[in-house]
């Protein structure tokens, strides 16, 4: 079930909330049961058969977790648990990729199995690996099965995160009966959810509809010209942020409606002035997981600068591969690994030369622009279906595939005597694969929002009191109303626009 579907917003969510509101003061177990059943229904809506896999995964991990929590537990249980989780993920997510890559390299002619990727497997695998590792470390005590099952399946985070940590979620389940004001939680959560819904349905999906034809054209082998390529690159940079942060906002809002505070996943990542900061602001819970359960166990920065760079590269390549089974994701991860290494190297050089780490205003502005551009360029790899498509778009970005302008722009340039021969004019309102050139207006608005506007948690007053912070006032009521009804109208009355969340694919 999609958060941005009519059936979720108008049927599932109200029904679950009403049931929960009825039972939450009467019985903790009943509250947990309501949320657990709701989460199972939510997951099974897609393909019920994969409930078996999810159920087996929960059962096995809980059992191994109990073994690991016992005094004197063997390390073998941890290795078995992690291996089972990664093996399952590898089978469903990477079998086709590895067989395909082998086949491409050596021409074995092996038939590729048709394996459907179970929804959310990347997310619930990671949450459970963290649980097992912490059980081994002695950080988990007396976890009940119902709490564990709900921790893994809780529908606001199940499909696409945030990647929750058991220590931040499970203790909250036992506090349902101490909730002070259901209306306050509902008003707060509803506003947060609405902001996310607006970001996803109105901004991300609108941009997606405009740039998808460019990526389709690149896939079909058509040459992507300069403006198309920049629309595709910057448009996807905006689409991905508003899609995924919109989803995360919806998840946080839903959690709040049920009295559960989920971790934040985004903190204005495009305001970052270096790539290290970017990863502290983008998909925060994944960065946290990779740092705590991969980078640090590999040795982190404790074994000298060379090992630090090696560890960074391993972490980012695997992080890339986690996003998708394909060479584009591997290269995307590698690229970010290189970015991070360069960033650390630059810091080291500055320290060696005795320069200030924090530059002045213009230095920060330049660093921010540079960070944004390298991130945006890397997103092309993240979005393109193949290296050839990505290469086509990169070629277009530097003008290698020519420059095509709209009829109107061409006429304007000609009128001012500024239409050189190397600029071609589109014969109608289509500019190559772009149906209209107004995508750049959308990109400009989106850029203004990500650079100049406060992010959702700032709006909601989560990181300090600001004059605009959320209060149940007339202005905020109007804001929440508009943020709710505009996307809802889109969902109900323009149903062809409903697009899956990008991170559902991972």
């Amino acid at each position, binding site marked *: 079930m999609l958060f941005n579907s009519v059936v979720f917003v*108008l049927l599932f969510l109200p029904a679950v909330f009403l049931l929960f509101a009825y039972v939450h003061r009467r019985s903790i177990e009943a509250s947990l049961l309501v949320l657990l059943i709701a989460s199972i229904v939510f997951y099974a809506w897609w393909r019920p058969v994969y409930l078996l896999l999810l159920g087996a995964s929960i059962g096995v991990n809980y059992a191994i977790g109990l073994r690991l929590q016992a005094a004197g537990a063997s390390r073998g249980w941890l290795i078995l648990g992690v291996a089972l989780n990664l093996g399952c993920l590898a089978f469903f997510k990477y079998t086709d990729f590895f067989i395909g890559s082998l086949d491409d390299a050596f021409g074995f002619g092996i038939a590729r199995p048709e394996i459907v990727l179970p929804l959310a497997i990347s997310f619930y695998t990671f949450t459970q690996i963290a649980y097992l590792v912490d059980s081994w470390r002695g950080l988990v005590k007396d976890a009940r099965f119902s709490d564990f099952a709900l921790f893994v399946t809780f529908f606001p985070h199940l499909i696409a995160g945030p990647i929750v940590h058991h220590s931040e979620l499970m203790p909250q389940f036992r506090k349902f009966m101490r909730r002070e*004001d259901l*209306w*306050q939680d*509902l*008003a*707060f959560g*509803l506003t947060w959810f*609405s902001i996310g819904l607006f970001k996803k349905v109105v901004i991300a999906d609108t941009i997606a509809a405009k740039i998808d034809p460019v990526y389709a054209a690149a896939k079909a082998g058509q040459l992507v010209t300069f403006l198309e390529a920049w629309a595709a690159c910057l448009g996807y940079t905006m689409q991905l942020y508003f899609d995924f942060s919109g989803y995360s906002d919806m998840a946080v809002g839903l959690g709040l409606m049920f009295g559960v505070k989920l971790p934040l996943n985004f903190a204005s990542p495009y305001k970052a002035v270096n790539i290290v900061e970017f990863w502290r602001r983008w998909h925060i819970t994944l960065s946290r997981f990779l740092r705590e359960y991969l980078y640090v166990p590999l040795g982190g920065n404790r074994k000298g600068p060379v090992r630090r760079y090696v560890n960074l590269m391993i972490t980012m390549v695997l992080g890339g591969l986690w996003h998708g089974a394909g060479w584009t994701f591997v290269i995307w991860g590698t690229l970010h690994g290189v970015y991070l290494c360069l960033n650390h190297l630059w810091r080291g050089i500055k320290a060696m030369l005795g320069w200030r780490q924090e530059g002045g205003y213009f230095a920060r502005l330049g660093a921010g622009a540079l960070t944004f551009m390298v991130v945006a360029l890397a997103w092309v790899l993240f979005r393109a279906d193949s290296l050839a498509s990505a290469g086509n778009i990169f070629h277009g970005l530097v003008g290698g595939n020519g420059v095509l302008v709209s009829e109107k722009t061409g006429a304007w340039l000609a009128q001012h005597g500024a239409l050189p021969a190397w600029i071609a004019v589109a014969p109608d309102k289509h500019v190559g694969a772009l149906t209209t050139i107004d995508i750049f207006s959308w990109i400009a608005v989106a850029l203004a929002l990500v650079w100049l506007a406060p992010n959702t948690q700032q709006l909601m007053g989560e990181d300090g009191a600001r004059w605009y912070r959320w209060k*149940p006032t007339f202005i*905020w*009521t109007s804001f*929440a*109303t508009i943020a*709710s*009804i505009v996307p*809802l*109208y889109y969902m*109900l*009355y*323009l*149903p*062809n626009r409903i697009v899956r969340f990008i991170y559902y694919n991972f």
Partner: protein
Amino acid sequence: MHRRMVRIVLWMVAATVVLPALLVLAIDPYQVLHRPFLRTALFISNDRYQDAGLIHQYLGRGDEYDSIVIGTSMSEGYPPTEIGAALGGRSALGLTIRGGNADALALVAESALATGKVRHVFWEVYRGYWDPLWMEQVQMPADLYSDSTRWGFRHYLFNHDAVLSSTRIVRGTQAGVPNIEMLYMTPGEFTEASREFNSPASLAKLRAELVPGAPIVGADRPTNASQIESAIRDDIFAVVDAHPEARFDIVFAPTSYMDIARRGPVDFARRSLVLRLLTAGAATRPQVTVFAFDTMSCIGGDLRNFRDYNHFSPGVRDLIVAALRSGSSRIVSADLDAYLDREGREVREWRDRFLAGGPGYEGKPLACAEATD
């Protein structure tokens, strides 16, 4: 405060869900649910929706029409009474779909025939309507045609286009015509577009598209033969067989020789296959007659009859009506090979004349048809 905020937001959400749908229900811009009340009738040329309204309110609930015209934009504008009389009935309701593919046309025909009122069907088959690329672009609100329950109309009630049309009707800004006879008619459009199509610059461009001496015929089985076969079988003859009470006049729409010549042998093989399948199907179904006009050089070989490669003039439309009435231009399996030979020859000769610099025609338009009459 919090409770009030939640209530206001939820009430507004409820209003967003319900009010636009209620507006569509009351105004019903395409008359899918009811005939207009408290307003004058207005018919909108958004055929994918409007045809559903015509079927439900005017075919199903009236006795005025006993014939229908099924086809693409090429079959727009047939005068209802004339075409109805030519088909042997009263008046014909035009249920054309611009860019309609095989599935879309079958959907409309099935829905109209299901009313039990239709006795005569004019069914245009256009050379490209099984085109798979084209088919992806056709967006039909299928529930308005195929779902017999009212629940199927939820897609109509919750539809942005329907909301916009309803709003425009309330504001008095909706474009439309006051009666069905004027629907899908664009008087004057042909003359201007045809003049442009036949301008010296346009003719020079058309000549540049043709390759001297290139074959017109000669390809064997066309690449998408199986799609054509299933389109004819499932989307035409399955409908025919389900409705023995009706007569079907299938018209293979004439196109310009320019179009046939530029597309070459593969497309000619497709045209041939379509005609072969249509005539074979008609041979075992006495209620079906097939008409084709491509051997009449005064139609296809005269670009003055066209406003683009395919869309023909009202004069050609009249000629088709006359052919239906008289039974001329009827084609059967036994005559097909000779027909195709002649068509290929006529197109080749026309192309050579056209490339030699001539207009490709002689005398006044449709002269050969007058001679035939």
